[in-house]
């Protein structure tokens, strides 16, 4: 309302007051005089449009802006797929292992032998997800390598990476037959037989076929148990397919899985020399590692990478809370009690876990006791090394071993480090979860690759399931688009990995599963998915009232007034 009107209104009574002494005013006149002059139609509409425009700004601009700025952005996630993966509904991992048979036989006989062996093998197998498929190897002539032998239409045998084991049939004249020999450094099983053991085409079974089937079953027994255990623990969805594991086996597998480190693409190994005195102050660790550990690490390169560092720590004392070593007269040695071993590492003072790099650290501690406290052994077993699950290993190098000269001088030679390095490499093998059986190392490593691929698939799926749960349970957490992208990638790679498993291409499956796991972890641990989510209602009132109250009251009041006058005008008409 323009102020001039107001001024007019206030001056109006003064003018009217002049004639008042001459004629006493009637009540009606007083009432009339107090009324402001009637509003012009134009100013009425101007006021109404002003109020209306304020409300329009509030409703059309303010409210959407408030809504938009306080809404939480949540990208759409394929929740159903994620949950299905976590529950194991989509991928039932299977492990079809291909075994190539090289037989110096006419094709007909070889096929027959293969068939009967396959039969025997299938009868032995109780675990449907893991099955061995026999096939004839390529003819040895390299000229034929380009012609791929197609077995049951889908796969070719050309890429030998995917053949789990090859069997070589070797006819011999002497010795007990059939007998077998598993080559320790190549995935090859040599089977010796006498020619008369080849089954005639008419027969349905033969001792040779049964023998091979049993041998194969034995070789893959531990792998089957590991996979069965993994499937059974991973999710309920697989339990129907589970092979029955005896309680002892399952306890042993449980122990193994407790001991082994979780899978990581890179591990960091720390080799530390601790001594309570000033000697030895140097060790020839570089060449020792090159000779004793490097070959082992190289052979794992298909599964994980390793980085290595070393340190020497002098004057390292025990933690005061463990019992000091005691001298045992019978053993003629200083002894540590087994209960104290887990406190042997003086975690408060020994600088371990250097927090280098991305991967988890595996610690190997070589402890050289003081000459006055040597030899130092574990009381119950007389051993001098032990393994700490998921952490690393400890070995004691006694400077004066019984029956040996003092081997410790100011510096340790490569030869002196040999036994300790042997211990460490054994410990590393069990920390990485390499199975003990069979004796052939490449076979064990390929077993580990399969187990790891399956466990990565499980852990990636369970991470996705966890993300789906968090998404549903905490509706207030923001979910950016990058999470949706990572989830899509993870799902795609999981599907590919699962397909690779089904095709029996385990190395590929491992690599894909690793990517899937990485993406799933990235999605779950997305940095911006943290909110201080809970805000009590009292706080909301406290925030909004001082802000909106002063604005809202005039707006509401004006709107109400106008409505009232509008209504009365309508009624008056």
């Amino acid at each position, binding site marked *: 309302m323009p102020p001039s009107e107001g001024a007019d209104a206030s001056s109006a009574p003064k003018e009217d007051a002049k004639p008042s002494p001459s004629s006493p005013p009637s009540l009606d006149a007083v009432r009339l005089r107090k009324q402001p002059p009637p509003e012009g139609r134009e100013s009425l509409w101007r006021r109404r449009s002003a109020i209306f425009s304020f409300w329009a700004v509030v409703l059309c601009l303010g409210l959407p802006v408030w809504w938009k700025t306080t809404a939480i952005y949540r990208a759409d996630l394929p929740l159903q797929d994620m949950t299905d993966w976590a529950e194991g509904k989509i991928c039932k991992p299977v492990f079809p292992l291909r075994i190539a048979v090289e037989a110096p036989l006419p094709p007909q006989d070889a096929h027959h032998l293969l068939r009967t062996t396959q039969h025997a093998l299938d009868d032995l197998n109780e675990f449907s997800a893991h099955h061995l498929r026999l096939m004839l190897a390529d003819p040895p002539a390299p000229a034929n390598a380009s012609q791929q032998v197609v077995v049951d239409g889908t796969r070719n045998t050309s890429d030998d990476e995917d053949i789990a084991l090859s069997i070589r049939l070797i006819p011999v004249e002497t010795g007990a037959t059939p007998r077998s020999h598993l080559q320790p450094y190549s995935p090859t099983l040599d089977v010796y037989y006498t020619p008369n053991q080849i089954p005639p085409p008419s027969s349905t079974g033969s001792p040779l076929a049964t023998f091979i089937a049993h041998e194969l079953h034995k070789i893959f027994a531990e792998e089957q148990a590991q996979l069965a255990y993994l499937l*059974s623990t991973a999710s309920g969805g697989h339990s129907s397919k589970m092979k029955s*594991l005896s309680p002892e086996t399952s306890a042993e597998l449980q122990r193994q899985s407790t001991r082994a480190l979780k899978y990581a693409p890179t591990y960091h190994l720390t080799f530390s020399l601790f001594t309570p005195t000033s000697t030895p102050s140097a060790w020839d660790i570089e060449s020792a590692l090159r000779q004793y550990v490097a070959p082992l690490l190289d052979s794992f390169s298909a599964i994980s990478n390793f980085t290595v560092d070393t340190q020497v720590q002098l004057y390292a004392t025990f933690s005061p809370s463990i019992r000091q070593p005691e001298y045992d007269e019978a053993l003629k040695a200083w002894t540590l009690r*087994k209960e104290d071993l887990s406190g042997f*590492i003086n975690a408060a003072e020994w600088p371990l876990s250097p927090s280098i790099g991305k991967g988890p650290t595996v610690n190997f501690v070589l402890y050289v006791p003081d000459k006055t406290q040597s030899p130092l052994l574990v009381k119950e077993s007389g051993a001098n090394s032990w393994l*700490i699950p998921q952490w690393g290993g400890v070995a004691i190098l006694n400077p004066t071993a019984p029956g040996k000269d003092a081997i410790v001088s100011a510096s340790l030679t490569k030869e002196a480090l040999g036994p300790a390095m042997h211990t460490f490499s054994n410990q590393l093998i069990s920390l990485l979860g390499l199975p003990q059986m069979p004796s052939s190392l490449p076979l064990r490593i390929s077993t580990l690759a399969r187990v790891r691929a399956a466990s990565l698939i499980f852990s990636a799926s369970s991470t996705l399931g966890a993300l789906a749960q968090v998404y549903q349970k*905490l509706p207030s957490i923001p979910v*950016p688009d990058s999470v949706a992208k990572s989830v899509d990638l993870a799902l795609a790679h999981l599907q590919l990995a699962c397909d690779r498993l089904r095709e029996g291409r385990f190395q590929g499956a491992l690599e894909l599963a690793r990517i899937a796991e990485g993406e799933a972890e990235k999605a779950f641990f997305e940095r911006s998915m943290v909110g201080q989510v809970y805000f009590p*209602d009292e706080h909301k009132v406290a925030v909004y009232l001082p802000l909106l109250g002063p604005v809202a009251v005039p707006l509401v009041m004006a709107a109400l007034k106008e409505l009232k006058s509008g209504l009365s005008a309508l009624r008056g008409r």
Partner: protein
Amino acid sequence: MKFSSAILPLLLAPFAAGEHTSNWAVLVSTSRFWFNYRHLANVLSLYRTVKRLGIPDSQIILMLPDDMACNPRNAFPGTVYNNADRALDLYGDNIEVDYRGYEVTVENFIRLMTDRVAEDMPRSKRLMTDERSNILVYMTGHGGNEFLKFQDAEEISAYDLADAFSQMWEKKRYHEILFMIDTCQANTMYSKFYSPNILATGSSEIDQSSYSHHADNDVGVAVIDRYTYYNLEFLETQVRDPTSKLTMGDLFDSYDEEKIHSHPGIRYDLFEGGEAVARSRLVMDFFGNVQNVEVDKGGVGNEAQWREELEAIERMIVEAKRRHNVTLNVQPQTQHVVEEGKPAQARQSLKKEGAMRVDEESGWSKQIVGAATLLGCAGLWFAGSWFESH
């Protein structure tokens, strides 16, 4: 199905027995300023105890919002004591503080628990736990009904804490948690938890204060809280070395309300197996770092054979490498897959992180209460101005 349900308990039995392979401790003091000296002393005492019982520094996350040792008002510079006898300097020369000063915030605490941290965060500041880790979470500061104040500036609510734990459970980031809190109305802080395998204990009930134990006249302020003091007394006098077989039940039984001057609470219902199992857990399962070490059997006999093996492996690897170089037909495929993953990564890093938002509570009743309050206030205002205008 029957078969599997029969065998499942067999398989799960070892899990129920509860084996953990690592112990972690998250020790948080949340208050600043000199007169809160005792909160820092509380946390440092706990830090000293878990370190003594074997948890390495790399597995202890210590959050100290203020530096009492170097406070100008400290009459004993460079030291922090938790007792008027000043027998033990808690600060010592070997403490590793992971989050200090203004790094101690609610956001950082939740990020730590859920591991949603920046990529360049050092490993020592992260909680790298897995499904076999036991975690001790100890918090102290000033709190109230369902909240705990951080730094006099913000507060963490019981709901946030419960949600953080639930995310940890979903991601299998713990095996068991012992949650301990010493603050006023402490028991309300764990009342909202809903994730399994959490054993929680607090110093005082709702509407109860948690008191300090005693003051040191030379330091000039209270040096320790009662609840922490009596916990420590038990840990220092009864749990003397890592082989101790005392249980959590023993610890809880040692709480004496006469001495603590408030009612300590214990919450068992989340724990798998309930009260009996929770009480039978060893104190060392949470305060120490005891693992089942495996002693290697016997001596190292066949060294010669091992050396031979190593040589053979080396030969094998050389051979494999040679073969690998000859046939490089598998490689391109895998590389292709890796490349597929990359563009998304690049785009992600481009996208900036948005600000955090506060949300609406989903419970309708609360909404209505809030709305009614708002309307009531607005109504009052309206009525007031109406009266004024007439």
